[in-house]
C-alpha cells in the first residue's frame, strides 16, 4: 500500500540516486543523445527534494503532483515532460486506489506513452516500465529483472527520441532514460513498499 510516508521516501531515494549517477547518465546520453540527461535529471532531483521536504502532504496524489511539477519546471528536454506525465498519472491513480501499486505504475506508463508515443522495443524508458509493470502485476519484481530490462535497450535500435536520429548507430548503447527509470524502480524495491 502506498502511504504519504513511503512514497515520499521512494521519491527522495530516487532523487538521491539521480544525483549519485549524474555523470554516468550524461555519459550514456553523450553516446546517443545530446549529453544532458544526467545534468538535467540531477537538477530536477534537487528541486524535487526541496519541494518534497519543505512541506507536509495530506495525500499520495499531492506528493506525486508536487514531484511532477518540480520535474516539469526544471528538467527540460524530453525527460521533464515524460517523468512529469508519469508522476501526474500515478498521482491520479493513487487518488482512486493506494493499495494497488501495480495499477499506479501502470498509470505512469500510460502517461509516458501518451506523451512520448513510444512502444516496446523503441529503445526508451518504456522498455523498463513495461516489464516492471508486468512483474508488479504478477508480484514478481526483482532487482535482476530491472537490470535486465535496462540492459535490453543496449541492442535495440532507437525509434523515438533524439537517439533515433542515429538509426543503426544507436545500437550497442544503453538508453539513458531506461537507466534512470531503472533507478526509479530499484528505489521502489528498496523502499519496502511492496512488502507492506
Amino acid at each position, binding site marked *: 500500500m502506498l502511504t504519504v510516508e513511503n512514497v515520499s521516501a521512494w521519491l527522495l531515494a530516487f532523487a538521491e540516486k539521480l544525483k549519485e549517477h549524474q555523470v554516468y547518465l550524461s555519459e550514456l546520453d553523450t553516446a546517443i543523445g*545530446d*549529453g*544532458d540527461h544526467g545534468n538535467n535529471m540531477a537538477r530536477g532531483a534537487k528541486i524535487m527534494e526541496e519541494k518534497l521536504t519543505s512541506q507536509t502532504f495530506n495525500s499520495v496524489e499531492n506528493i506525486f503532483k508536487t514531484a511532477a*511539477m518540480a520535474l*516539469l*519546471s*526544471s*528538467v*527540460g*528536454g*524530453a525527460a*521533464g*515532460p*515524460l517523468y*512529469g*506525465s508519469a508522476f501526474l498519472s500515478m498521482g491520479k491513480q493513487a487518488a482512486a486506489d493506494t493499495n494497488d501499486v501495480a495499477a499506479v505504475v501502470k498509470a505512469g506508463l500510460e502517461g509516458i506513452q501518451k*506523451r*512520448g508515443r513510444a512502444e516496446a522495443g523503441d529503445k526508451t524508458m518504456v522498455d523498463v516500465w513495461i516489464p516492471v509493470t508486468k512483474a508488479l502485476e504478477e508480484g514478481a519484481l526483482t532487482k535482476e529483472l530491472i537490470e535486465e530490462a535496462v540492459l535490453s535497450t543496449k541492442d535495440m*535500435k*532507437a*525509434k*523515438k*527520441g*533524439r537517439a*533515433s*536520429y542515429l*538509426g543503426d548507430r544507436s545500437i550497442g548503447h544503453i538508453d539513458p532514460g531506461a537507466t534512470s527509470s531503472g533507478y526509479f524502480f530499484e528505489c521502489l524495491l528498496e523502499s519496502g513498499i511492496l512488502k507492506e
Partner: protein
Amino acid sequence: MKKIINSPSNVWEEMLRGMAFTHSDILERLGETGVMYRKYEGQGKVGLVSGGGSGHEPSHAGFVGKGMLSAAVAGEVFTSPTPDQVFEAIKLADKGAGVLLIIKNYTGDVMNFEMAMDMAEAEGIKVDKVIVNDDIAVEDSTYTAGRRGVAGTVLVHKILGAAAEQGMSLEDLKKLGDKVIENTKTVGVAISPATVPAVGKPGFELADDEMEYGIGIHGEPGYRREKIKPSKEIAQELISRLKEECNWKEGDRYGVFVNGMGGTPLMELYIFMNDVQEILSKDGLVFDFKKVASYMTSIEMAGLSLTLIKLEDEKWVEYLKYPVETAAWV
C-alpha cells in the same frame, strides 16, 4: 572556445536581460522566466505562442510584437523550454479568442508544448497547435522523429501573425497554419560548426575545405559532406533537392527566403540569393515575396538555408507583407 560572454551558465539569463532592455518598447520579460510577451494588447484576437531552445536568435522573441507572435518562450541553449513556462506564455497570450502554438518538430519541443497545452486546457483556455517540419534534408522514416522544423517557421509566424491580427479565428488559423506548413520547404548547408557555450567545443567537425548539406540547426547530421564549392553549385544542389519535393512548373508563384545560420555575412547571403534567382528564373517561377536575413540561426554556425514557399493563395502574399512591430522582422 572564444566568445563574448561572462560565464557559460549565465548565457541564457544575461541574453534575455539584454534583449528585454533593448526592445522594451515592444516586449516585456515575465519575471525570471524565458517568456517574452508583447506590450501590444490585441484584445479579442487569437494569441500566437512559439519558442524553443536559445541559440537561434533572433528566433523567437525577435518576432514578438503587433502583427506576429504574442509571446515567445526561450529554453536554455538548444534545449526546449519547460511546460510551466510555455503555460505562462499561453496565459499571457490568451485575449479571449484562444491561443495557437507554433512548434518546431523536435521531440523535446513537441512534448513540452503539448504538456503545456494540456495544462492550459485544464484551466479552460482554448488552445491548438501547428507543428512545423519544413526541413526536407532528413528523409522521413520510421527511424527518425519525422522532419525537423527550421527557418520556414519564421514565415509561418509571419503569415499566421498577420491573419491573427486581422481577426482570424483559432480554428481557421490552425487550418491556415497546416496549409502553409505543407507548402513550405527548406534545406540548408553548413561550412563551419557552432559551439554550445556550456559544452565548450564545436558540435561537429568539418575540415577547412569541407561543407555538409542538410545539417540541422542544432548541428544534427545532414545528408552529404563534400569539398566546398562555388555558391552557384551549392544553390544548384539545394534547388534540385527542393524541386524533387515541390515539383514546380512554369508560372508557379513562390516566396523565397535565404536564411543565414549566424556566422555567414549578408554579403554571402546576397551572392547566394543572386544564384538562386538566376537558376529559378530559368524554370519560370514568379517570386511574389523575397527575403534575405539571418532569422533562424545556430549560434555562430556558418552556412545558410534556402526556404521556398508555394504561394497557393494570394492572401498569403498580403500576410507576408503586412506591417509588423517586432524587434527582428523588417
